C-alpha cells in the first residue's frame, strides 16, 4: 500500500504540498463546517427532525433549490449563447460587454437586490409594463428566480468561454467537409466539447444561488410558505436567538448541496470518460 502511495513523481515536494493543502483545507473549510455539526448536536434527534421538516422549512427548500435549479438551467442556455457571441463574433464594444459579464460577481448583492426590486416592482421601469399583463415579478417567487439568474450568469459564461476559445475551428470544418449538417456539427462536435465546462458552470451557478441571501431578500417579499428562502429562515431563527435551530437548517442545506455537487461531479466524470473512450 505504502509503495503505491510513494510512487515517484517527476515533481519533488509531494509530501510537503499535500500536507499544506490538507492543513489549509481543514483550516478554511472543515473546521468551520464541523462547528456547524457540533452545534446541531445540542438538539435531540426529535427536535432536529421537527425543525427541519416543519412546513415553512419544507416550502423554503422547495423555493431555494427549485429557483436555484431553474436559474442554473436558464443560465446554462443563455449563458452559453453569451459566451458563444463573445468568442465567435467580433463587434464594436465587445470588450465592454465582456467586462460587464463579471458585474454580478463584483456588485454587492444587496445593491443588486435593491436595483432589481426597483426595476421590477409595480412602479418600476419593467414592472409597470408587466403588471397589466398579470405578471408580478417583485415580491413573488418569480422575483427570486430573476435575482438568482442575475447572480449566476458569470459562472456559466466564464467557464464556457475558454473552452470555446480553445475549440479548433478546423474540427468543425472537417465535420462540414465530411458532410455533416450545421445541426449535426453543433450536436456531435461542439456540444460534447462544451458539455463538461457547461455542467461545471451550471453547478457553480446553482451552488452560488442556493447560498444567496442579500439580493433575494429585497425582491422576494418574504411571505411564509410562498416566497421565503431557506437562508432567510436561518436568519429568522438567529434573530430569535435560536442558534441550534439555525444550524439545523444549515446542516440540511449543506448535506443537500454536497449530494448535489457530488452528483454533478459524477455526471461530469461519466460524460468525459464516455467522451474520451470514443
Amino acid at each position, binding site marked *: 500500500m505504502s509503495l503505491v502511495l510513494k510512487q515517484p513523481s517527476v515533481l519533488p515536494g509531494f509530501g510537503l504540498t499535500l500536507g499544506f493543502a490538507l492543513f489549509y483545507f481543514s483550516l478554511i473549510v472543515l473546521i468551520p463546517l464541523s462547528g456547524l455539526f457540533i452545534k446541531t448536536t445540542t438538539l435531540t434527534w426529535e427536535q432536529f427532525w421537527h425543525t427541519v421538516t416543519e412546513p415553512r422549512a419544507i416550502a423554503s427548500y422547495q423555493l431555494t433549490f427549485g429557483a436555484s435549479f431553474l436559474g442554473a438551467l436558464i443560465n446554462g442556455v443563455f449563458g452559453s449563447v453569451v459566451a458563444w457571441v463573445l468568442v465567435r463574433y467580433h463587434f464594436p464594444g465587445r470588450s465592454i460587454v465582456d467586462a460587464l459579464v463579471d458585474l454580478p460577481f463584483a456588485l454587492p448583492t444587496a445593491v443588486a437586490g435593491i436595483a432589481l*426590486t426597483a426595476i421590477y416592482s409595480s*412602479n418600476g421601469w419593467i414592472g409597470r409594463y408587466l403588471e397589466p399583463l398579470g405578471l408580478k415579478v417583485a415580491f413573488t417567487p418569480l422575483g427570486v428566480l430573476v435575482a438568482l439568474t442575475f447572480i449566476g450568469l458569470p459562472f456559466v459564461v466564464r467557464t464556457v468561454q475558454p473552452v470555446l476559445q480553445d475549440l479548433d475551428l478546423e474540427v468543425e470544418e472537417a465535420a462540414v467537409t465530411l458532410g455533416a449538417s450545421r445541426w449535426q456539427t453543433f450536436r456531435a462536435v461542439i456540444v460534447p466539447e462544451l458539455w463538461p465546462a457547461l455542467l461545471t458552470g451550471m453547478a457553480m451557478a446553482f451552488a452560488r444561488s442556493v447560498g444567496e441571501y*442579500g439580493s433575494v431578500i429585497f425582491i422576494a417579499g*418574504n411571505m*411564509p410558505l410562498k416566497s421565503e428562502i431557506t437562508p432567510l429562515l436561518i436568519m*429568522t431563527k438567529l434573530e430569535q436567538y435560536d442558534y441550534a435551530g439555525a444550524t439545523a437548517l444549515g446542516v440540511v442545506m449543506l448535506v443537500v448541496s454536497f449530494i448535489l455537487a457530488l452528483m454533478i461531479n459524477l455526471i461530469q466524470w461519466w460524460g468525459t470518460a464516455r467522451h474520451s473512450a470514443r
Partner: protein
Amino acid sequence: MILKPLVLTLALLTGALGFTPSIQAAESVSILNVSYDPTRELYQEFNAAFAKQWQAKTGQNVKILQSHGGSSKQARAVIDGLEADIVTLALAYDIDAISEKAGLLPANWQSRLPHDSAPYSSTITFLVRKGNPKGIKDWNDLVKPGVSVITPNPKTSGVARWNYLAAWGYALKQSGGDEAKAQDFVWRLFKNVPVLDSGARGATTTFVERGIGDVLINWENEILLSTKGSGKDKFDIVVPPISILAEPTVSVVDKIVDKRGTRQVAQAYLEYLYSEEGQEIAGKHYYRPQLKSAAAKYAATFPTVELFTLKEIFGNWQKAHKTHFADGGTFDQIYLQSPK
C-alpha cells in the same frame, strides 16, 4: 448583513482603543453605544451634548461611538462579543436576551433606572397616502378587504413586534378580552400584508419608494420624521385613537464596563438621558419624553392617544414572545392554517 462589516469595524476599533488605556485614560475615554435603527439622529445630538457636559463636570474628554442596526441583530452582536458599554434597544426582550444568553448583565437590569429603564417612549401610528384615499382612521380599517398594509416581519424586526402587539391589544380591548377574536383580527390584518420586509427601514422603503400599500404601520417617531422633509406632500399621518405604549429600553452592560473601567461614564451617560437636557433632545427627535416639563414643551408634536401598556395586556416580554412570536406561536399560525 450590510451592517456586519460596520459592527466588526467598531468592534476592532473599540478593541484597539481598549488596548491603549494607559496613555489615554486620564484625559480621554471612549464608550460604545449599541442601538437600533431609528435612533441615529437622536444619539448624534445627544452624544455631543453629553460629551460637553461630561467635559465641564470632570475635565475628561469622552468619545462616544455609535452602532445601529436591527434591534435583535444588535443584541446578537453583543452576545457574540461586540464590546458595548451601553445598549439602547427597541425592546426589553433583546436586552433580556443579552442577560440570559451571555450573562453580561443581571436579570433585574430593568429595575435599575426610572420608568423601567425607558427614558423616552413612543407609540405605533399609521402613515397613509396623501388625502387618505382609503379613509383609514383606526385599527379596524386595516382589516377591510382591499386595504393593503405594510409592516415588517415580527420574527426579525423589533417595531413589527410592537405593531403586532398593538393590533392584538386593540382587538382584545374591542372584544372585551376575547383571545379568539383578537387572533381572528390579527389574522385578517396579515391577510392584507403583501410584503414582509425583514426590518423597519425596508418596510418604509417598500411603502415610500416602491409605492406599495395603502398604509404603513411604524414607530410614531419614524412617521413624524418621514413627513418632515419631502414626504409632506405625499403622505398623511393617521393617529389611531388607541395604541400601545412602546418603551425602548436602555442599560449599562455590566461585564463590559467593569472590564474596560468605564462604568462611571456609562452610568452618567444614561442618567443624562433622564435629565432636562436629555429629555429635551428626545422630544426634539420625536420621542415622547418622560419628564413633565419636556413633555409639556413638545405637547403639540404628540397627539393624545389612549395608550395601553405591554404589561397590562401581555404581562411581560417573555410571555408575549412565547405566545406570539416563537416558532409555532400565533404569528406562525396565520400562515400555517387559514382562519375559520
